[in-house]
């Protein structure tokens, strides 16, 4: 009797958390099930958790007609890989320099970084600068550079805090006694012992790039430069665009008739989230650490 009473809070917690987990998962499930449903059935009875008829048509169509999608996928992968590699390197280097207490001007640089978190010029001046001064409209740079995905103050401060707490001075000194310069010390001694922060920051930057649609919305108008997110963005509002871009011919009406439009859209969206769902369980620990340290430290 006493034991059961002791378990009550835990049981209640499990029940409530399972309900919340369902709340999180159900919309994702509806998306996935929709992409695996028969197009005509969905047309008649709507997106449903229990479709009358299952079908792989949407994915078959994607594989055979999906040149535009593959291109968008390729752009997203390229931007994510390049951007994450560069961003992680620059963030770690900057954070490390700021963690070195003997560096003159460190306080000023810290404030320089911190201020970017409080105040910025906003959409209009930033847009005008990138478009009129740097001419990045409709270039791949537009997907890589603006909006602080590459380097942001939050990640820099996160990295700095980690290096301050976890890289002992003596280790750096001993590296230098052996005659190594600052760069070799950083790459050969500091980086290998800093894997947790590199994983955290890399994950934050990587998710940022993979999910970004804002840069594309502002700076990309040519469909051939669309990332997966921008492509998805476009076809949610404009299904004609999908049939035209996929069939590549003028006869969009007949293509529309053949194409499982209602389910294909969902299938494309699924391809956008599968990579995240697959890798996330392995990185969840780093992600959770990143957001908790960051949020509490401000």
């Amino acid at each position, binding site marked *: 009797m006493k034991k059961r009473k002791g378990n009550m809070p835990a049981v209640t917690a*499990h029940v409530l958390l399972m309900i919340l987990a369902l709340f999180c998962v159900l919309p994702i499930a509806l998306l996935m099930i929709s992409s695996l449903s028969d197009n005509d059935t*969905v047309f008649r009875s709507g997106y449903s958790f229990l479709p009358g008829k299952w079908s792989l048509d949407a994915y078959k169509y994607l594989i055979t007609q999906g040149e535009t999608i593959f291109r968008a996928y390729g752009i997203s992968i390229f931007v994510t890989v390049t951007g994450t590699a560069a961003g992680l390197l620059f963030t770690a280097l900057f954070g490390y320099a700021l963690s070195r207490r003997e560096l003159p001007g460190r306080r000023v640089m810290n404030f320089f970084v911190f201020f970017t978190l409080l105040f910025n010029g906003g959409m209009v001046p930033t847009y005008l600068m990138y478009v009129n001064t740097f001419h990045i409209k409709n270039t791949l740079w537009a997907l890589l550079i603006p909006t602080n995905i590459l380097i942001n103050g939050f990640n820099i401060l996160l990295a700095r805090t980690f290096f301050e707490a976890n890289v002992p001075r003596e280790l750096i000194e001993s590296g230098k006694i052996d005659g190594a310069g600052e760069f070799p010390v950083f790459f050969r001694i500091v980086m290998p012992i800093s894997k947790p922060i590199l994983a955290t920051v890399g994950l934050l930057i990587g998710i940022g790039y993979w999910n970004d649609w804002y840069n594309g919305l502002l700076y990309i108008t040519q469909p051939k430069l669309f990332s997966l997110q921008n492509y998805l963005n476009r076809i949610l509002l404009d299904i004609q665009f999908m049939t035209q871009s996929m069939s590549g011919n003028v006869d969009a009406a007949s293509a529309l008739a053949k194409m499982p439009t209602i389910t294909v859209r969902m299938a494309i969206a699924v391809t956008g989230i599968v990579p995240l769902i697959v890798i996330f369980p392995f990185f969840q620990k780093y992600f959770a650490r990143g957001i908790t340290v960051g949020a509490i430290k401000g």
Partner: protein
Amino acid sequence: MKRKGRTIKKLLPLYIMALPGLLYLFINNYLPLSGLVVAFKNFDYAKGIYHSDWIGFKNFEFLFKNSAAVVITRNTILYNLAFIAINTVTGIVVAILLNEVTSRKALKFYQTVILLPYLFSMIIISYLVFSFLSTDVGFLNKSILEPLGKAPVSWYNEAKYWPAILPVVNTWKSFGFQAIIFYASVISIDQSYYEAAQLDGAGKLQQIFYITLSFLKPVVIMMTLLAVGKIFYSDFGLFYQVTQNSGAIFSTTNTIDTYVYRALTQMGDVGMAAAAGVYQSAVGFLLVLAVNMAVRKISPENALF
């Protein structure tokens, strides 16, 4: 003096390490600040920001004469207040629930699942919302309203539903994130407090109320103040993408951020867009200063600057 010069030379590699980051932040975050002057100009693409003619506060006059100014300010603030309240309460409740789970495997499972929505882009979330709200094939109309014999609702054209829809979507996306932050504080509470309370005969709810909540108080206050500092900013994706930029529902979905974007790209009114942006930045900055003063009073070690 000479010695200082030598130190700097010796530390030169560290400055080189900082350089790409410094340069990036300078260009992306500082350079546009000078462009804020465009709010006080009659912007002409041919002349560029700096050579367009000055017109003083005309852009601001236009902005505030427009009834949209009131609507976007109201929407931005009210939605933020709702989000802060809901996220704080759900975050605390879920953090406390997580704390009751002892199995490591179960804990990891719950944490992963509730963080999952936070990983998705607003575009993907727009798809999820669309699968429920689509007029023709949406789950709500087809699988719930139709079997009940009710007429389908044109969700994307009915402004009155969105003050309920948007908080649900926002909560779905962010409650896990909020919970994980609070949970980090909950697990740092010394177990001996609970043991002592148990010895004194305190029940579970009493323990939660007197120990957990009182330890969470500083984090909750901090997070709330930070959110209040951002009350003039809205999640552009939530209000622009999830609503599918539908004009019929602007009265309950237009915020300062979506207004700036539309003024810039759809109305082509750069001056007014910039004025709205400056209004947002200026008030936002004052709020951050005010919040920081408040934090300094409550817990100086958490002050931002």
